[in-house]
């Protein structure tokens, strides 16, 4: 009975090592770093205690007591008493350790970059309040300069969601009627995946986003580019696609700055093609994926709020062609 868990322990070692792009075991920022260390500390201490108890149990099962009842009760009393004292010491230590870590994590950052994240069913609206120029509004992707602390102001539009990028920091809920803040820093450039961690309805499973950390200058360039309006259509097909987008229901929910499309119910698509993913982290940003998504969003992501707009094949081609050029 006592050797059965070994395979599962092996599993832990097997997968404990592998670094995911959405994993608490691969910290890429100071906050996640501190949490990682605390995690390892807890696991070591607690696993030791767990093993110790099982060893005592094993011995207790093997041995045959010869002690008189009185002696037995006396010895047992001493043993239990000591164990209780040890328990108190251990939990006090662990409590202090987690208190210290809390202090480290919630220490304020100087000169942070401010980003507003608003969660909706089932996507993320990301706003960079304009320093020098208009606000930058994008969706499901947070570009940040590597090394600089980022102050993320969290709010919810409909139900409770939770913002979680395990590689960078612990999670923080977005709650209607309340404003929460999370500060995180990415040590070096890279792509870190995040996902909604509070059940929020039908498509809770497909509410992901990317945090893309870049060198500061690259970030500045990206930000400048985002402030510009959408590019003019390159060719005839793109022009046709843009007209379709404006005349069909698309424009009623989506904004593409520099066009007639000024809807605010769906994500801002002004620089759609500059993002890494489509539909809140579901699809890669390719023209093919765009076409598939527009053609039948309810099959790809059942229950999401984008309707299936009837388009002719030509219109579908043109719209996806045009959207694919919105860098």
């Amino acid at each position, binding site marked *: *009975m*006592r050797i*059965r*868990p070994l395979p*599962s322990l092996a*599993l*832990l070692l097997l*997968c*404990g090592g592998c670094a*995911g792009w*959405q*994993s*608490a*075991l691969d910290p890429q920022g100071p906050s996640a770093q501190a*949490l990682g260390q*605390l*995690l390892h500390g807890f*696991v070591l201490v*607690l696993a030791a205690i*767990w093993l110790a*108890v*099982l060893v005592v*149990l094993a011995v207790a*099962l093997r041995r045959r*007591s010869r002690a008189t*009842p009185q002696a*037995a009760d006396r010895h*047992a*009393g001493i*043993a*239990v008493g000591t164990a*209780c004292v040890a*328990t108190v010491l251990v*939990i006090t230590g*662990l*409590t202090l350790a*987690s208190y210290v*870590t*809390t202090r480290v*994590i919630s220490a304020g950052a100087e000169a942070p970059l401010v980003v507003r994240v608003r969660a909706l069913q089932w996507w993320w609206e990301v706003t960079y309040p304009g320093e020098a120029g208009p606000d930058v509004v994008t969706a499901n992707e947070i570009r940040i300069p590597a090394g600089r602390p980022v102050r993320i102001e969290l709010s919810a539009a409909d*139900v*409770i969601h939770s913002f*979680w990028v395990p590689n960078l920091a*612990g*999670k*923080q809920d977005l*709650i209607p009627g*309340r404003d*929460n*803040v999370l500060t995180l820093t990415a040590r070096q450039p890279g792509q870190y995946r995040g996902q909604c*961690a*509070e*059940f929020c*309805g*039908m498509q*809770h*499973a497909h509410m*992901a986003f990317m945090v893309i950390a870049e060198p500061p200058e690259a970030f500045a360039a990206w930000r400048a580019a985002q402030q510009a309006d959408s590019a003019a259509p390159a060719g005839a097909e793109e022009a046709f696609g843009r007209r379709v987008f404006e005349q069909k229901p698309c424009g009623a929910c989506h904004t593409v700055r520099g066009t007639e499309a000024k809807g605010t119910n769906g994500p801002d698509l002004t620089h759609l093609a500059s993002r890494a993913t489509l539909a809140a*982290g579901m699809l890669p940003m390719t023209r093919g994926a765009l076409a598939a998504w527009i053609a039948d969003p309810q099959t790809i992501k*059942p229950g999401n709020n984008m309707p299936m707009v009837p388009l002719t094949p030509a219109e579908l081609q043109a719209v996806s062609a045009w959207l694919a050029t919105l860098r």
Partner: protein
Amino acid sequence: MSARIQDDQRDTDLADAPLDAALRRVWDTPRGVWGALATVDHKVIGRRYIATAFVFLAFGGVLALLMRWQLARPESRVLTPDLYNQIFTVHGTSMMFLFAVPVMEAMAVYLVPLMVGTRNIAFPRLNAFSYWMYLVGGILLWGAFLVDMGPDIGWFAYVPLAGPQYGAGKRVDIWAQMITFTEISALAVAVEIVVTVLKQRAPGMSLDRIPLFVWAMLVTSFIIIMAMPAVMVASTALILDRLVGTHFFNPAEGGDVLLWQHLFWFFGHPEVYIIFLPAVGMISSILPTFVRRPIFGYLPLVLAMVSVGILSFGLWVHHMFTTGLPRLGESFFTASSMAIALPSGIQIFCWLATIWYGRPVYRTPFLFILAFFFTFIMGGMTGVMVASVPLDTQLHDSYFVVAHFHYVLVGGAVFPLLGGIYYWFPKFTGRMMSERIGKWVAGLLFTAFNFTFFPMHVLGLLGMPRRVYTYQLDMGWGGLNLFVSLSAVVLAAGFLLFFYDAVRSARHGEPAGDNPWGAATLEWATASPPPSYNFARLPVVRSANPLWEDDGVLPVAGGLRVDRRELLVTTVGDALPEARESSPRPTIWPLWSALATTALLLGSILTPWAVVWGAVPVTIALIGWFWPGGRKEEES
């Protein structure tokens, strides 16, 4: 013992055989449908409760398998997201409200009166009523699920998702009313158990001689009494928000979204101990029998259970560490959550000491206790992890938590419960369960359980959130999930084997004597299964392990009437005889009352006015219930 010794009278005038006949005449439940519907015998109702709870366990297990089928592969389309959300909600709700709590109370309904040596539970009609309410609540939830009306908002029903704007249709209302049904029945049973334990103990069973399972159920019942009103208030506020437009949870009109979480977890955390403490009691009652020595540390164990009961009300915020509450307050709740590790530790240490100085006998119930040690302690350790505010920000709402609470609830409660079933099955049915199959069941469940749930710790750390109906291929969670799903099939096989053994043994198991395990507590002092009147003459208790003290001779009390249902009321502290109280006869009114209440509660989902016109049949039924029938039981 201050009671006076005299010459026998009344029941003591009769020899055993005529006494049995006389007592059966007054105590037996009449046969046939009417008898089945009208019975107030705690043993019949207790068995019903247990059987029904295990049926719901099986159903919940089927849902679990469906979820594992869907999650076995990334982007699988076995279930639609809408159906998946209903399934995990009904799974959680069913396991918590229709299995875990009721089955523990059911064990108590059957065992406590026997263990304290009385003839029926206090308020037997209320007991019948509570079972009917529970049954209707369960049918309501499952019926709704089968017509695609199952709640889809999680067993915790967070607003606003469960609120009037985002919870479309009647699904959430059904959830909220199902809560009302199960809470009413749970509260009723809690009251019965408190009164039975305080006032109906056998003469001489002073507070320090109460079996530990009975102590556990006493504490549990008090937790229920203090905790369940919170969820009643919460679900009432929710249904009012949804149906008559109140604003308890509407931030735009002065309400608060977190109010729901405070209320729900003020109930929801004690709920864990409502499920766990009875298991503690079972272990403390089973262990001595299989290590052949009295439990070590009776007093510390009792104090530990009481302090767990008190502490359990100071922990609720540790379910809300990521909601952005003030950090200082959160740190306090870290401390209190950690503090509960001490009484839990004391329990473990006392059991270890008991085994250390005992002589273990490896029968199936004992194997389940060993399985408990392995799994529950690990669950306790991960519990310490989620109790830490900073760690919880990484672990909360991830699969790590799923693993944690299954280790605590299955390892900590279901394993001891199954051990308890193997242990008390001969008392329930008069037949033993198969030792051979039992060892297989224990082994299978233990192995498959750990294979199923241990990898979930890793999945959580690898970033897999809870309550997702699927995950993407490039997340790299596929391998572990497939392994988990396959293990889940083995786990299900283990439970299937258990059910097979139970059903088979109930019919063809080898007959058990009064006391097949040579146990020490009073329920073993009567026949298996016990006669309708439990004890021909009420036992008299002189120690904590009565059947181990008196060598083959049971001291009893005489002088109760045999021509009416009569039992003994004793003092709270020393259990000195106070009065001969009568116990009600079978009656159909609890069933009518339950049906009337059902009409009111279900109607209120459709229109608030149902509360008004629904009150009429309820009142009539209650009057019928309490109006005296002029029987011997009414005399004085």
